[in-house]
């Protein structure tokens, strides 16, 4: 099973790298927001996967906090893009 996890991890890392290029290149602000959000979701799965690779599935607590935090960050970034202010 280790090999399956490892291949999935490598696939996710390649995906992360590709999205990172998009986040750096842009060109519009919304592209960067979209890429950041996609990196966030990929990270959540990656944390869970790391827990399984190292045999400690209780890492999943981390994944929950990631899911929530990524969502809130996206909303904040979006609000600033849309309204130009945070309150």
């Amino acid at each position, binding site marked *: 099973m280790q090999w*399956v996890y490892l*291949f999935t991890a490598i696939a996710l890392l390649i995906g*992360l790298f590709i999205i990172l290029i998009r986040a750096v290149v842009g060109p519009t602000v919304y592209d960067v927001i*979209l890429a950041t959000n996609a990196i966030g*979701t990929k990270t959540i799965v990656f944390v869970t996967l790391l827990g*399984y690779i190292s045999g400690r599935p209780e890492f*999943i607590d981390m994944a929950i906090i990631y899911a929530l935090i990524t969502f809130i960050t996206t*909303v904040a970034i979006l609000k600033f*893009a849309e309204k130009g202010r945070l309150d």
Partner: protein
Amino acid sequence: MHWNEIVTTVLLALGCVVSLTGSLGLLRMPDFYTRLHTSGKTDSLGQFLILIGLAFVTPDVLTCIKVVSVGMILMIAAPTATHAITKAAHLHDLRPWTRSDPGGEP
């Protein structure tokens, strides 16, 4: 290999393919809306497939519930975020790409 490991392997492989496709689409597509089209859906589905696949090999019930709940949070949060980004872009008059008009900044 036990049956649940086979299920996990299949689901993880599917998830990898879907999520890599989405990433590639995010890089290759010509404008924001088409990128959103590839990445928004695959982000939810690919990640959900991987998480559900992992849930099959989870030893204890509590962790299994947590894995499934992370999948559920993702299934709710990721489409919401994508929708909100799209709506914001649309409200800001970001023009979609066509053959004659390359689109771009509002």
